[in-house]
């Protein structure tokens, strides 16, 4: 039988019916809704970032205007006593939204992506402007197109491919079919290729429509190459599942057996292993206690306030060039606050390092689970591609803290000396700029598990092919 004839009959028998159309419609609905929800979240993040940038720019514009008045001696009686204090300089910081950010919400609904950097606040409170997102929605996990693919693409493949041989077996057609085709392997792979391709092409085409419909925040030209990487990841994921289903189908058991086995594998690989893996990683490498971090910070704050004079003296000893401006109207609480905040940050730096250490250890443990389940690797990869992974957010927080520390180092002496900074100095300050790791570099941690699972897929293909040689309609 010609390939095209096989495809024609497969289309007729498998896909040209109401049940199949309903399944595809529902799946498309899930993908499009996921795309819509992801876009809505992205639009919201962008508008928050824009509003934040505008608010900070406006407040710094006012601050600069006041400073200029002070420098020009213009209406100084209306100005605040802290005009020109480096403490009051606020920087806008945000995590830039990647071109395919709408494709996976990732951790962006939970972790900070925008915030003011100010040396009034210690690191522990740098991003403590709490978000009020619906905790039930957070607990259940956002619904985006990537999540829809990870959860439901394997199910769709199972539904359409599980019975590529078992349908004939269960209907007692297998004997006749084998006699007619003689080479069952060829028929198996032709049917299989067609069915799996229909599902995968449908998924990718739907995703492409989502890509087009959701374009707006980024140029389509910027989104397309990233979409290519996304599509490749999805294709790899689909391929793994296709080969797994083919292997189970090649055992020539009944359709029921196939469904139950594949469903068990789906539950295990897509839900249980990822969840169990993260639970085990958390248990083995728990993050240091944030409450202990807070307690430590408060204790240091308390102690610093009690020995404020000593702390100030120590600072002056470290900066012998400093001359405190005794004429300054800057209230003492300003320099006190700076000294307290710097001391707290210094004291709690090891705790922050311990946090980062435990996160790294956990990532290492979880990378092992990436070898056990494609959902683990693909989930991480799709979040990374969308730029909404934990790693990228943590990098943003680290850079924000570092920026704050650098600024504190730069202006600390002026603050303690109660010196105002000049408008020229303010204008020379660089703004926060997130230093991005290239996408392919970020995907580096996913490469080895993906290669392993790719090899596994090829192995399953070869094994299935081998098993198909000996298929008989008689099983005993």
């Amino acid at each position, binding site marked *: 039988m010609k390939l095209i*004839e096989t495809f024609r009959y497969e289309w007729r028998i498998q896909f040209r019916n109401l049940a199949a159309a309903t399944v595809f419609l529902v799946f498309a609905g899930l993908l499009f809704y996921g795309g819509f929800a992801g876009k809505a979240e992205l639009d919201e993040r962008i508008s928050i970032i824009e509003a934040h940038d505008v608010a900070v720019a406006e407040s710094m514009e006012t601050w600069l205007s006041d400073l200029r008045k002070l420098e020009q001696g213009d209406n100084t009686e209306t100005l605040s006593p802290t005009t020109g204090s480096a403490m009051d300089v606020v920087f806008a910081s945000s995590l830039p939204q990647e071109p395919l950010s709408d494709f996976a919400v990732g951790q962006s609904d939970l972790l900070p992506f925008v915030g003011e950097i100010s040396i009034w606040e210690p690191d522990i409170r740098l991003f403590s402007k709490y978000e009020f997102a619906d905790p039930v929605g957070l607990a259940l996990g956002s619904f985006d197109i990537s999540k829809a693919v990870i959860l439901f693409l394997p199910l769709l493949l199972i539904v359409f491919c599980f019975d590529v041989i078992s349908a004939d077996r269960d209907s007692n057609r297998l*004997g006749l079919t084998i*006699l*007619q085709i003689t080479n069952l392997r060829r028929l198996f792979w032709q049917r299989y290729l067609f069915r799996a391709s229909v599902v995968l092409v449908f998924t990718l085409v739907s995703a492409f429509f989502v890509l087009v419909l959701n374009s707006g925040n980024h140029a389509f030209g910027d989104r397309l190459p990233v979409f290519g990487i996304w599509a490749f990841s999805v294709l790899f994921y689909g391929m793994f599942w296709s080969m797994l289903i083919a292997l189970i189908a090649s055992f020539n058991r009944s359709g029921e057996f196939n469904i139950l086995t594949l469903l068990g594998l789906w539950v295990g690989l897509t839900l249980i292993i990822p969840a169990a893996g993260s639970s085990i990683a958390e248990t083995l490498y728990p993050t240091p206690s944030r409450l202990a971090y807070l307690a430590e910070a408060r204790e240091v704050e308390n102690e610093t306030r009690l020995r404020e004079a000593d702390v100030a003296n120590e600072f002056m000893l470290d900066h012998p060039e400093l001359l405190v401006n005794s004429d300054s109207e800057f209230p003492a609480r300003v320099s006190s606050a700076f000294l307290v905040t710097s001391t707290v940050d210094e004291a709690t730096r090891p705790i922050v390092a311990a946090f980062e250490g435990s996160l790294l250890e956990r990532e290492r443990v979880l990378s092992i689970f990436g070898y056990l389940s494609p959902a683990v690797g693909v989930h991480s990869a799709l979040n990374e591609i969308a730029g909404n992974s934990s790693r990228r957010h943590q990098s943003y927080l680290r850079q924000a803290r570092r920026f704050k520390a650098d600024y504190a180092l730069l202006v600390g002496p002026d603050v303690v000396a109660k010196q105002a900074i000049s408008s020229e100095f303010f204008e020379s300050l660089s703004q926060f700029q997130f230093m991005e790791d290239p996408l392919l570099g970020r995907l580096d941690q996913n490469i080895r598990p993906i290669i392993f699972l790719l090899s596994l897929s090829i192995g399953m293909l070869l094994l299935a092919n081998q098993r198909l040689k000996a298929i*008989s309609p008689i099983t005993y």
Partner: protein
Amino acid sequence: MSELLLAQALTKKFQSKTALHELNLSVRRSEVVCLLGANGAGKTTTINLFLGFLKPTTGAAYVDGLEVSSNLDEVRKKISYVPEQVSLYPSLTGLENLDYFVKLSGKRQPHESYLRELLGRVGLDQIVANNRVKSYSKGMRQKIGLAISLAKDAKALLLDEPLSGLDPSAANEFSNLLRGLADNGTAVLMATHDLFRAKEISDRIGIMKSGCLVQELSPDGMDQASLEEIYLEQMRNSDETSG
């Protein structure tokens, strides 16, 4: 050799049970051989061994000189098969099912007129052929099964209880078709319970009991009652021997 189907000391064991014990059987071109026996006699096992659906424990089955187990693909090109239950695709019509299975064999790209001629040869009404198979009776399905075999134009035709569940008229029609095929050169091996039909169409009858071919005879010149007597005698003898 003129024997298209040949079994030499063909034996099949399933764990401790012997389903077929050292069968020696041949079916020549243009010959119809019927295997008679009760359930579990080994008739279906014999058919399945010739089809290559089972591997023999010892002995060998040959189709047109080729040993079945080591030449599966080649052998299956030379045989066609009608199972007891001809299962088709319920959502396709009879014509479409025939078209599909004929194309599967890769032998030719059939024209619709050819397919309809085949259906005519097996006596399936052309209007019925345009209906979906889920509405077909067993007899109609058997006819489609036979049409598929005809299209394959194979040297040997194996049938497993094709007449079970057919009414006398349909069974008669089917038997005549088989005889016609044999007359055209096809070797036919059929497993059946139906003593009457076996006598009507076959050149030789093999009586099987508990995996053994206990008697081979020609029904020529024999009446129905005699054949029945011989059959029952064999069944009784075998019981006494084993009892």
